[in-house]
C-alpha cells in the first residue's frame, strides 16, 4: 500500500490589497528594512574610512615609529596587521648599539610564533635561544644599519612582542592587532 501524498487545503493567508490583490505588501516592515539598509551603508562607509586611515593595516594609523632616548634603536612596525599578510618589523641601529665589535639583538619568541617571522634581512651570523626568545648576533665589520623581520601573522588576534639590545638594556614591548 502506497503512502498518500501530503496535501493542505488552500487558505488565503496572504493579505489582500483593497480586498482585491493578494500581494502581502507590508510597508511598515519595508520602512524598517530601509532604515536597516541605511544603517548598513553608514557602517560600510565607516569601514572604508577606517581602512583608508589604516585601522585595518596598511595605512598611516597602522605605522608606529619608536626610538630609544640614546638613539641606539629605532623601531618601525605596523600595530595593525592582517592574518597571513606580509608585514615588516624594522629596527634601525645607531652607532652606539655596537658593543665589543658586535651587534646583538634579542627578540621575544612571539616574533617567531605569533608574528610568523619568515626571514631576517640581513641574515644574522648566529642565533641562540635565550630568555624565552632568540638572540641574534652580527659580527664585527658585518653589523648592519638595520634589521628587517619579514613577518606574516599565523593567526588573528592580539599579540605582544619585545625587542632588546642586551648590551644597553634598551627594550621595546609592543602590542599588535591582527585582523582576520
Amino acid at each position, binding site marked *: 500500500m502506497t503512502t498518500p501524498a501530503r496535501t493542505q487545503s488552500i487558505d488565503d493567508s496572504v493579505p489582500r*490589497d*483593497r480586498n482585491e490583490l493578494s500581494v502581502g505588501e507590508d510597508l511598515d516592515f*519595508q520602512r524598517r528594512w530601509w532604515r536597516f539598509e541605511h544603517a548598513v551603508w553608514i557602517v560600510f562607509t565607516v569601514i572604508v574610512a577606517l581602512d583608508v586611515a589604516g585601522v585595518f593595516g596598511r595605512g598611516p594609523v597602522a605605522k608606529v615609529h619608536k626610538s630609544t632616548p640614546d638613539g641606539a634603536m629605532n623601531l618601525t612596525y605596523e600595530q595593525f596587521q592582517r592574518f597571513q599578510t606580509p608585514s615588516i618589523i624594522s629596527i634601525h641601529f645607531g652607532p652606539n648599539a655596537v658593543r665589543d665589535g658586535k651587534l646583538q639583538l634579542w627578540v621575544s619568541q612571539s616574533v617567531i610564533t605569533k608574528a610568523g617571522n619568515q626571514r631576517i634581512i640581513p641574515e644574522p651570523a648566529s642565533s641562540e635561544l635565550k630568555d624565552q626568545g632568540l638572540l641574534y648576533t652580527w659580527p664585527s665589520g658585518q653589523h648592519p644599519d638595520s634589521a628587517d623581520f619579514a613577518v606574516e601573522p599565523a593567526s588573528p588576534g592580539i599579540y605582544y612582542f619585545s625587542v632588546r639590545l642586551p648590551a644597553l638594556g634598551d627594550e621595546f614591548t609592543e602590542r599588535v592587532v591582527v585582523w582576520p
Partner: protein
Amino acid sequence: MYTVIHAIVGYFFLLLTVRVLVRRPGAQLTPFEFVIIFLIGGVIILATVGNDHSETNCTVAIITIGLTHRLVSIMRSRYPRLSAWIDGIPLILLRDGQWQLEQMEGLRVDRDDVIAAAREKGLTSVREVEYAVVERNGSISIVPRR
C-alpha cells in the same frame, strides 16, 4: 578551520551586500549589476581559500557554503519573517493609476521599468495597468485593468 569560518562569514556578508545593493537578481540583472556581483564574489573567494589552493581546501569551502545555503533555505521556509529579511517582500509600485512614490524611491525603480514591464504584457499604455508589483525576485508583475 579558517576555511569553514571564512566561507560562512563570506556567505553571510555576500548575502547582506547583495541584499542592500540590488534587488534585481537572475534574469533581471543589468551588466552594471553583473560587474558588482562577480567582483564581490571573486574577492570573497580569495579570502575564503587564502593561500591554500589545495583541492581539499576548495572542497571544504564549497561544501561549507552548500551546507550554509541549505540551512538558510530551511530556516527561510520555516520562518516567513526571516524570508522577508533575506528575500524582501512584494511591493506595489502602481495602484489604480497612482504611482507609489515611497516604494519606487526606496527601491530605486523608475517609471520606465514599470512601463517596460507593461509592454512585455502587451499593454500599450501605463493607464491600462491596475497594479504593478515588484516581486521578491525583483521582477515586476503587471495586473491589467479589467
